[in-house]
């Protein structure tokens, strides 16, 4: 099959970007979207042109590195996958595919389709951890945790930090990302001692980085590759309000 790629090209953070169009022939349905891009890039190199820069690494949907806005959807139209898990069989022969980088003020484009998401790390630095040192911890079975809490905590913890939630949010809000961590730890006894500080500091860091507010449209949970529910945002709101009201 053949597809036409309309791709955002931008030299670096300072330069102006623009769309460019590339026809790609001999695409097979079993190829992943990135394998199709690899094929195009090889051709661009041989033609002496600059290949399209895009972020990717594990290519199995877990590292969270990849993330493209494809035909108006974060990670493409298929539910619960990352861009690297998208296969060409999801497209029609001859289809024009619009490929854009994540758009958010907190994620500046550094080249073509690559954005900088270090703002996520700074949010995590504000409290996305349990303050324990290595060693001196109690036996793992000394703390029983109800299975349903452990399971729900795991639901939240499965966040891969890809930022599809921010990319798809009309407000570029990072609430689902922050909620995933706060929810994970607030469901577990280990997270209790720092519960108050964590909620307040992570929300403050999120606001500081220039992410928007949540208006509860629910788009994030639809686009989340790990299907993290916005009920975790509810829990984050509660944690924050409790923390700021009760202290």
């Amino acid at each position: 099959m053949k597809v036409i790629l309309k791709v955002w090209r931008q030299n670096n953070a300072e330069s102006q970007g623009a769309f460019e169009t590339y026809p790609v022939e001999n695409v097979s349905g079993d190829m992943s979207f990135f394998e199709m891009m690899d094929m195009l890039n090889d051709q661009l190199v041989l033609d002496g042109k600059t290949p399209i820069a895009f972020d990717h690494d594990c290519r199995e949907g877990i590292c969270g590195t990849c993330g493209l806005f494809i035909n108006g959807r974060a990670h493409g139209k298929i539910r619960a996958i990352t861009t690297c898990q998208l296969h060409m069989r999801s497209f029609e022969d001859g289809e024009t595919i619009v490929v854009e980088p994540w758009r958010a003020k907190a994620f500046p484009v550094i080249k073509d389709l690559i954005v900088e998401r270090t703002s996520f790390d700074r949010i995590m630095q504000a409290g996305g951890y349990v303050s324990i040192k290595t060693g001196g911890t109690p036996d793992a079975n000394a703390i029983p945790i109800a299975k349903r809490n452990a399971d729900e905590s795991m639901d939240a913890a499965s966040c891969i930090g890809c930022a599809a939630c921010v990319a798809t949010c009309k407000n570029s809000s990072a609430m689902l990302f922050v909620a995933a961590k706060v929810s994970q730890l607030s469901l577990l006894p280990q997270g209790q001692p720092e519960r108050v500080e964590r909620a307040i500091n992570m929300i403050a860091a999120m606001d500081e980085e220039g992410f928007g507010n949540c208006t509860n449209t629910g788009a994030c949970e639809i686009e989340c590759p790990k299907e993290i529910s916005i009920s975790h945002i509810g829990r984050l709101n509660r944690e924050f309000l409790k923390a700021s009201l009760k202290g």
Partner: protein
Amino acid sequence: MLNNKIPSGPLAEKWTHHKFSSKLVNPSNKRKYDIIIVGTGLAGASAAASLAELGYNVQAFSYHESPRRAHSIAAQGGINAAKNYPNDGDSIYRLFYDTIKGGDYRSREANVYRLAEVSNNIIDQCVAQGIPFAREYGGLLDNRSFGGAQVSRTFYARGQTGQQLLLGAYSALVRQMNTGQVKFHPRHEMLDLVMIDGEAKGIVTRNLITGEIQSHSANAVVLATGGYGNAFFLSTNAMASNATAIWRAYKKGAFFANPCITQIHPTCIPVASDHQSKLTLMSESLRNDGRVWVPKKKGDKRHPTEISEDERDYYLERLYPSFGNLVPRDVASRRAKEMCDLGHGVGETGLAVYLDFADAIERMGKDVVVQKYGNLFDMYKQITGENPYEIPMRIYPAVHYTMGGLWVDYNLMSTIPGLYILGEANFSDHGANRLGASALMQGLADGYFILPHTIGDYLSGKLGEAVSIENDAFSKTETDVKNRIDNLLSINGNRTVDDIHKELGLILWENVGMARNKSGLEMAIESIPKLKDEFWKNVKITGTADELNPELEKAGRVADFLELGELMARDALNREESCGGHFREEHQTKENEAKRNDEEFSYVAAWEHKGESLPAELHKEELIFENVELTTRSYK
């Protein structure tokens, strides 16, 4: 000349004694030391956090934008520990024994025992960090069984154990980043090691966004940069996983141990086309409930559901009645290859075997199967377009893990003083074959519980030592790095980096893959250097050095793989025996099992770089077994 520094005394007391007899750095002096850590996966992040907690100044480097992207994240199945929570007879000694045996008696007793010993601390540590391991209804931790063991000792967090453990180590690391005790350098790739007076004193990096070449000095350098499975082009590694850091260290004098010993994972999704860019692993835990089979008839192209029970060969169950589908990885992989070579392979390419869940679905019900393996089944369906609930999965082995790596002593220090190697990047604990759920264990053991105790012994002698990037060694290394980049960019040939990498991968897969023989290895030793010449004459890289340039990054890595590939073949040729992941066709039993040669090859092959035009020199570290008896592994 290789001093492995294994402490004397009874096996179970070595580590305790060693910790006591090692020199310490006074708590108030720790802040006077700078430590560089390259790579922030499980081993690197846990080491960076633990050393910073102790008070050392840590500079951490990653070519990723965030430590959370490291490929440790992709480990699915679990992490082993000798907790014996299920009360099925596990113990530190049993974990030690299983690991030594699983490694086909090519690892050090003392290292493996220490690994088993600290395994329990790892679980305690991870739980305290808030890692949501799977639990039973009573609230206590759940365990599952894994290949190569007859006890259930694997802790897991759904099919995302590596992710959860990495995020745990990452959380400890960001906590130290927040205090400023760790300075993290994202998107910085180490391109060379800096040596001063024969010791490791810093690194030269390239800022992947701006292309800037920078020097960084420290009192010690730690490499935790993972394995080199990507030498094969197709592997389960992430796209950027590479050997550059350890290869640069090798060329500066660190010995490379057992480079040929590679783990081929039996349960991966088969190659679909020439454009395949990587292979996806399906957790080995699938073999707990899935049954492996091929059609008895050669070249049987019928749909699997049309092949009746008596026309199927459940070859693992037939050959290994006691372990069945749970034989170690090397055995399962080689048997799959053998079945395909004999013409029983399935799928379009004939390079696959079935992993069938029909019985499991009937026995446990679909709901339980969904709960246990749902995400893996979804992943399989997404990639292949086939529904594994209805038709058996097709699987084939793929390069997964490299047991070889830089040689380290008991302190995890390489042959270069001040250079420490952790995790998959070192060779130390898995011998000739790593058991499932042991990689996470080793990475975290090295980072959380071993290096923080051993690094002081070296550093304590360096109190007051000032290392500065003003030293000529830094500017000289920077010049070397820049020249190499300029060389790469000036070639302007007509083959892409991937094109040459694929050719290398094919040579390695065919000749240094699951089964090796003398003529194939000799062919590889002859053809890889030619391919290296071709690369340096004919590769084409567009763009410049002072911008984000992924092709340039890849080129530097492939240039190193081309040299490493040759060493892998040389090591494989040298090792005239079959052991674990290294199978020499000349050395097998009548039943086609690996035949070790303990008389002549019970050693670690550590290779020393002697210069560009000279072959590497082999050093042998004898493996001494005082506690276990060397037997032929049998999983029958």
